[in-house]
């Protein structure tokens, strides 16, 4: 099991992890810590290792720049934000923020397809994500869209229609006051 990153900052409702260049987990993907706290990737950012350093523009293609000035990339940190949303308890997946603080330097791994399926078997995961303050999760809709696209991609054609109906019928209740968001999601999550 390859690790995807390591948690370096723990803040209320959000975790920040460091990954590797070109190996950052996509937005909406589900990760788990080595203590089995499940999180969803909410955003990416690239920081400088040296505080206060501001990169300058070189005006060169990326491959050329990487070849000529490798230190430019070596001075960067490849970061991503995570929203922890639950953990297994007695084999059942329970959706909630972790009661105890997630250990800093916890390693992160991709959740398996089975684990992802279990996280969304209880559709209140979607309600949980929709309930997160937009200051913490500004790209909420994109996170959910990507999560669902990834989730649906694992289904066979026959099963897909029923699962789509199950998930979106639930979302239609959650978003009954916000039809245009629901419509955007239905339009974007193509099956």
């Amino acid at each position, binding site marked *: 099991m390859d690790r995807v990153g390591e948690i370096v900052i723990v803040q209320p409702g959000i975790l920040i992890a460091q990954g590797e260049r070109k190996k950052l987990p996509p937005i909406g993907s589900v990760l788990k810590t080595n203590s089995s706290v499940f999180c969803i990737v909410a955003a990416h950012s690239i920081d400088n290792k040296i505080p206060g350093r501001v990169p300058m523009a070189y005006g060169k293609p990326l491959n050329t720049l990487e070849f000529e000035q490798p230190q430019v990339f070596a001075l960067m940190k490849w970061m991503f934000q995570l929203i922890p949303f639950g953990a297994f308890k007695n084999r059942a997946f329970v959706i909630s923020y972790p009661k105890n603080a997630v250990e800093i330097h916890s390693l992160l791994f991709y959740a398996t397809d089975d684990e992802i399926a279990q996280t969304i078997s209880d559709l209140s995961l979607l309600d949980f994500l929709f309930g997160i303050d937009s200051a913490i999760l500004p790209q909420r809709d994109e996170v959910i869209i990507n999560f669902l696209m990834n989730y649906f991609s694992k289904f066979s054609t026959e099963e897909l229609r029923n699962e*789509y109906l199950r998930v*979106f019928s639930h979302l*239609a209740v959650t978003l*009954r*006051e916000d*039809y245009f968001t*629901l419509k955007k999601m239905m339009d974007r999550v193509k099956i």
Partner: protein
Amino acid sequence: MIGFLKSGSLSEGFLVRLNRKISPETLRIGDFVIVEGKLYDYFGIIEDMRISSSNEDVFFAPPDNFLKKEVLKGSIIFSELKVAPYLMVERTTNKIYTIKTIPEHFSEARKVNAADLEKVFMNNTKNPFHIGQPLTMDEQRIFIDLEKLCKRSNAIFGITGSGKTFLGRILFSGIIKNSIASLLIFDMHNEYGRYAKSEKSFKTQSLKALFPRKVKVFDVSTKNPDADSFISIPYKDVTPMDVGMLSHILNFSDKSEETAYIIWKQKGTDWLAYTLSLKHLKEKALAEKAEELNVNSASLSALIRHLSKLQGLDFLKDIDEKESSIEEILAYLRNGVSVVVQFSGKAANSALAYFAVANILTRRIHEKYVDLKEEEREKRRIMIVVEEAHKFLSTSLKEQNVFGTIAREMRKFNVTLFIIDQRPSEIDSEVLSQVGTRFAMQLMDERDMDAVFQGAGGGSKLKKILRSLQPQEVLLFGYAVPMPVAMRVRNYGEDFFKEVKESKKKNPIKEANDLY
């Protein structure tokens, strides 16, 4: 489960939100619905349906494929049923109550099943008789308590082609088969005798063919080969009241009626023969007779002219009272044999013949039954069936109306009326209010629809259901059923014939003949 209770009140009924998987098109107005409370099952019927939305934004950008539309069902778009509750059945005891309370929010609503229908429609029923099935549930059966039905006057209302006759034949078959009442059917269009035409113009069995020993067919004309006997009514059996009932056909004025009464007072039962005997008198001789009778000469002349029309009725004869069919018919009725009076030959489609026979016979039966001792009356109930009843029971004929009297008062004498009619709005409201059980079939005229519910509570709720009925469908409500029921009348065909056809054990006609 088809949905859950969203809101409700005793006065306005229940609002049921349909499950997203239930299409409103699988239900229809008039269907039975049960809302399952904690303690009771609430029986109601769908009174109205609607589709609605929780967010109007959806109509600015409607879903562009089937799947998206499915997603929105039950949340942003949804369907609701308005259910009129009528009964509640206690779960533990199966006791039935009228609605006294309401179930809680989210109580589950479902369609009825056979056990539910049995619980409600066969509860304490001596003679449950299968008459149809719920509108959208062919596999379920609805029963009526025939014993209860016959205790009061009843009516079938519906336009031509709505299926009144088929329903009538089914009900009458049940009544005859179970020997609940003797029927006297005034069969205007010859549909209740031996054979009748089916919807597709095929010859189909009618009451005499199904119950050869329990039904006697009389005809006013000797031209009918299927008749067991023929009607003869002596002039002496005709009263001015009978003639008054025919005033709309005979063009009788009040003055003529008054003249008839004056002659009747003087000549007694010979009044008609006497009046008709004056027909050939010259003007001067007639004036002398008028003076002798103390009536106006012109009125006498008009009366004779009007009454002369009765001479065209072959069954009305200047014969001795002993030759009258009335006693014979009464004897059959009192011995459990039903009598169908048909109108063939010249009398076919003759309103005069029909109304004259129906009125005269009914008046005599009324008189005889009133005179009978109570124990005699209780032996056999009689139900008189009249078609085109509005012509007997209109408000204008209220005073002299024997049918109205039967509807109003004869229940205690064990004689009831069964009205078959297409214009209930023309029937006197007092009579309508006495109709115990009503079978309302397809009607088009708004006034007729209103009249159907006259004297019955909750009419406005049921009117929508009535408006939705198609041929062969009926809205049944009143005394004989615990709650209103919209249903499709069962098929009148081979299966029905097999079920009701008379066994060859008893011969009540022979028993009745033995009385002579």
